[in-house]
């Protein structure tokens, strides 16, 4: 079932839309949620919340790209739970987040919400200009929170190459953010 058909079901308030969503995006949503959260029960709750959100928001929303819409909903939901419970548990997302943190070190205070948005947009722009493979690997890491092993399997490359691509990209990102003055004081490297 394609996006339009699923959206049509949702607009009709046909409850089979949820099954269709699960069949089409269940793997994607679970992958994202389990990459961020640890407890399988939290993952399932998160996925259920995502499905509920899709049901609730469509309509009136009519996303052109339902894959991205579902993925973003899953990411939103999982990160919210991560933030709420990160003080108590080890989370799978910790390592990729720490990698991102290493790129952002020196980028200003957390209270500057506008700067956070601008920083995120700068990162998005940076990612969009990366070569395809590098972009894909980096996105799978920082956006989808995939493990290095899973990224390697997905792209059919060695884990070493994944590490190498990620390290290079983080370094390039940091240089870019320094150049754009998101990071003060120059590259500490």
């Amino acid at each position, binding site marked *: 079932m394609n996006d339009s058909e699923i959206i049509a079901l949702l607009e009709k308030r046909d409850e089979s839309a949820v099954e269709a969503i699960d069949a089409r995006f269940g793997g994607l949503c679970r992958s994202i949620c389990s990459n961020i959260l640890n407890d399988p029960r939290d993952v399932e709750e998160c996925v259920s919340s995502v499905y509920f959100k899709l049901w609730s928001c469509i309509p009136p929303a009519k996303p052109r790209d339902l894959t*991205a819409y579902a993925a973003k909903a899953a990411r939103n939901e999982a990160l919210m739970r991560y933030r709420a419970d990160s003080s108590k*548990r080890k989370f799978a997302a910790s*390592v990729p987040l720490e990698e991102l943190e290493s790129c952002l070190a020196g980028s200003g205070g*957390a209270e500057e919400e506008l700067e956070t948005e601008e920083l995120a947009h700068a990162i998005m722009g940076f990612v969009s200009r990366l070569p395809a493979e590098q972009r894909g690997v980096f996105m799978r890491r920082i956006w989808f929170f995939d493990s290095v092993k899973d990224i390697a399997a997905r792209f059919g490359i060695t884990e070493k190459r994944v*590490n190498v691509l990620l390290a290079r990209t983080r370094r390039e990102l940091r240089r870019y953010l320094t150049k754009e003055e998101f990071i003060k004081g120059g590259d*500490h490297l």
Partner: protein
Amino acid sequence: MNDKTIKTSEALTDMDDALVSEAANAGKMKKNPLPWLISAAALVLIAGAATALPKLLAPKKADIDANLPDPAGYTETTEAPAPTEAPAPSEANGDAEVAATLDPAMAAAEPIETMPVVYAEPKVFDSVVTLSAEVNCGEHNDSADVLSGLDMIYMPTRVIYGAELEDITVESDKVTVTYGIDKDYIVEEEDPNRVVLIWFRNWQKGSAEEFARSISDSNFGFFFHEVFGTWSFQSNLEQIAVWEENGYGFELIMPAYYGEDEDVLRYKDLTVVPLDEASAHDPYEGLEDDGYLQLKEHEFTYAPRTTFAYGTTCYEPEQVLGGSEGRMLHTDGLGFIESIPDEEKGYDRIMRYFPQVGRLFEPVLRENAEIAEIDVYDPITLETIKLDISMDELRDIADGNVSAQMQDYIFGDCRGCVLVDMIVVHTGDYAAEFDEYEIDAYHCGFILNCGY
């Protein structure tokens, strides 16, 4: 994990749809039956939930989240629905590990996925390895937990601009480093025109993973830089990978890349003696009860060849790295300091390894500083090189203002690099800076790459 990082990551959810979809569909991941099983189980749950959905929907219709996407029509970059209020975390299922606190130390216990770490049975190299290699030095970050090496190998290899590290394998008598340039072009090593510097490190047991992680967190793992045109004190080594193999720790540091052409670097012969069994299998035998590491003579000998971290974020102040009584190796945020009591001279000889090669003079030759002694060593053989040079000329070197003419004058038959070891006596205001370490005078060592 700071709040800003999480907020930034959350904000990244608004990534362009095309990039999200591209990444969602990227690659050729093999189908694993497990997700299908999970999906099948989920369908069962969904079927059950579907019967309850109308009951949930009715009251919720009047309470739709205010952050709904724009209902006006299609959206190019769809804003995902905002998450619900934070649910209560799932209760522990009697698992003793549930209450773990998320912090870097805990995270470090997870498998390190960012750096290649290979564990194998300890192994001693069977023979002396003689290589032709360039001696080149630069800077790199170093973990305070690891002391520099017992041995090092300069391995000739071929480096091409833009090459990427593909693989590293270690055998009994050779190290193979494989590079790729583009995905389809792999270049093997064995070319004497380039050199890969691989340090053997005396890994503290269990520290490889943490060290690799610290390197990763320090955002290392570079590739080849752009041109470094002069002999001077530029960053010309980049740490590529850190790993442990065959009982040895490895740190792969790539040499400088001069120009877009494949310039040949000067090199000379070097004989490397492999690690002996005692040090290989129990490098910290005889560890003092106080926990400090014994600095063996040859460890100290090699230490000056180590390159050190640049920047002020790599070390904890006052972090003690180890040493025996009277010989303490620690950092002060600027670099390594080793203090060596010298009764004959009446003060501690302090070896300070400054963060960046080439800037070692900078904090040394200040006003009121006097160089008490200068020794210049060949960094490989440690043979003393006679140095006939004045203070002013040394200051010029510190400032990087050394002409080619002076290079010839100073170093004569250039052999790549020399090690300069000085004892500097500070007086006046700057002496107070070192009171904390009870330093009146100190060694200053650095490695000078004198050009090609």
